[in-house]
């Protein structure tokens, strides 16, 4: 597979990402650029909704690579991450061989059973086979220690050995993006393999730009008001401070209601798009709403 030329420097990558609608700041653009050229996994940490997963998708778009996503959860096993055998089809094959009366010897029959066509590739194997690709390992903090150790092995040499078939090696290492919401401390050994970037909520101007870019129908005025109100909500010490995703949901909700600007009344009606805890809603209601959402 021929690889389109990679961006020459972080600024070029930032520009390319912007053309897909993802607006990175300088640090994030540098992180992504280094991950591309150094073939190092990129470990992204930050509050939920700051755009960690979206970056992987945007990078796939920019580099024109296929993206494979592995969602982590507790108890995630290698067979769900790497590969599995298609047992149903293996048995059918066995029956068919019998019915055809093929006088194969047992070893041959067995060898034919562990053929590539009976192998179900899971995200990690897919990403290596289809490399260059983008591999998104989402919420790695949800998987358990054993899986982390296993991941370490795969990410250090980008090979997977399948006992029955042999070793799969990626020609070009995939661009790996790991995300974590920091529900748990991820092992240092894994972090050491990666470039580490802590993602912050975007600043005001960037957030307005993101809203404008993603929701072209929303007026500039509404986008600015939503960004400002979201920023204020983030200062309130809420259980779940709203991320960019919530700001976008909010702007979409307001736009759907035909609101052209954010006034205390429409804000109160659409607060469910931004706040996800009753305590937070109560808190915001208790505060002077006018002070939060009123004015320009």
């Amino acid at each position: 597979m021929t690889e389109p030329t990679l961006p020459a420097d972080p600024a070029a990558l930032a520009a390319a990402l912007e053309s897909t609608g993802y607006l990175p700041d300088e640090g994030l653009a540098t992180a992504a650029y280094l991950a591309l050229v150094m073939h190092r996994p990129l470990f992204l940490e930050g509050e939920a909704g700051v755009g960690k997963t979206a970056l992987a998708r945007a990078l796939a778009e920019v580099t024109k690579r296929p993206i494979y996503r592995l969602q982590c959860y507790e108890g995630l096993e290698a067979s769900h991450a790497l590969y599995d055998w298609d047992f149903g089809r293996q048995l059918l094959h066995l029956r068919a061989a019998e019915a055809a009366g093929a006088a194969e010897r047992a070893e041959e029959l067995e060898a034919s059973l562990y053929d590539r066509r009976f192998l179900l590739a899971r995200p990690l194997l897919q990403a290596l086979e289809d490399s260059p690709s983008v591999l998104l390992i989402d919420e790695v903090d949800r998987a358990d220690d054993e899986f982390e150790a296993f991941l370490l092995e795969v990410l250090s040499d980008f090979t997977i050995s399948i006992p029955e078939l042999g070793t799969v090696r990626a020609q070009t290492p995939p661009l790996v993006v790991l995300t974590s919401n920091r529900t748990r401390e991820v092992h240092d050994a894994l972090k050491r393999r990666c470039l580490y970037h802590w993602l912050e909520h975007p600043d005001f101007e960037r957030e307005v730009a993101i809203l404008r870019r993603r929701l072209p129908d929303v007026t500039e005025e509404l986008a600015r008001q939503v960004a400002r109100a979201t920023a204020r909500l983030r200062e309130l010490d809420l259980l779940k401070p709203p991320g960019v995703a919530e700001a976008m949901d909010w702007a979409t909700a307001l736009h759907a209601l035909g609101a052209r600007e954010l006034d205390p009344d429409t804000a109160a009606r659409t607060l469910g798009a931004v706040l996800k805890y009753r305590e937070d809603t109560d808190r915001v209601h208790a505060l002077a709403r006018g002070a939060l959402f009123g004015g320009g």
Partner: protein
Amino acid sequence: MAAEEGQRRDVVTTVLGFARTLRHAGVDASPDRVEAMLAAVAHLDVLDATAVYWSGRLTLCASPDDLDRYDAGFAAYFGGEAPRARRPSGAEEQRVAQSAPLQTGEGSQEGGEPTELATQASGEEVLRHRDVAELTVAERDQLRRLFALLVPASPMRASRRRSPSAHGSIHQARTVRRALRDGGEITRLVHHRARPRPRRVVLLIDVSGSMSPYADALLRFAHAAVRARPASTEVFTIGTRLTRVTRELRLRDPDKALAASGSAIPDWSGGTRIGEVLKAFLDRWGQRGTARGAVVVVCSDGWERGGPELLGEQMARLARLAHAVVWVNPHKGRAGYEPLTGGMVAALPSIDCFVAGHSLAAFEELAGVITRA
């Protein structure tokens, strides 16, 4: 060529010096990380301060707590050219600033004095403990040994991981492999079932003044728990602030572990603001996952200097997150004790189990409560 060689050497020297500065500031800039930084710098413009800043930050840092130290180290070493203003101001900045003191091993400007105090205090704690429990030196030594033997078994929970079993769902891979041995005939189904896993146990230990007679014993209990299940036990101390001491308690030797956690705790024998500190715990750790489905053990006498409403609120929040909430109050062991303090009254509705924690026997009982939770 020679000039390039020279520049390369300069860069290496500079980066090594920078890494040394950072290590002093508490960032773990290990040799492999420094190597990664050199590789990163080589891909960017060596003469651009911003590029150097980011190549270091992306390769040498490993947690949000490192970032402030990194910025300070960068400013000190490269003469304040760090693009510090790039970090958004407002809530996020404040959040980092607030959370920093809650971590162990914080910046040097505050580190010195409280550490000394803490070590002294931890010595005193032991003495006070002996006083209250009315033990002789020999008895105290024996008690320590007993604490080391106290192994609180973890409560178990179901998981998605499976292991072979006589019953349960069919393990397709093994069934097919077995069938192959019998010439493709499925003669026996091989089963597997969910393997139970230890449930996380979180200990929150009050180290304020009113609890100081018991803090040593509680930390010893915590040490035994951490040693038994290092991966699924978390320990925090609460007082005027939250300190995570899990890492310190992982040391094998109980006395060393206690000394280490003692120097990590900045607020020995201070006041109590359980409500606030509990909120900090839930915000920073609990809600993100540490308290989710865990058995949370709060060890405190419930003397709350802040408002009991906040404590009640946070306890309710904790109860919604945790699998079980156990409250250990040493005073409960005394005859005629009634939970009348404001904090205790506010917390009681959210507690699943209320136990004493004043003697070794009480701790054994506590271990049982945790296992059954």
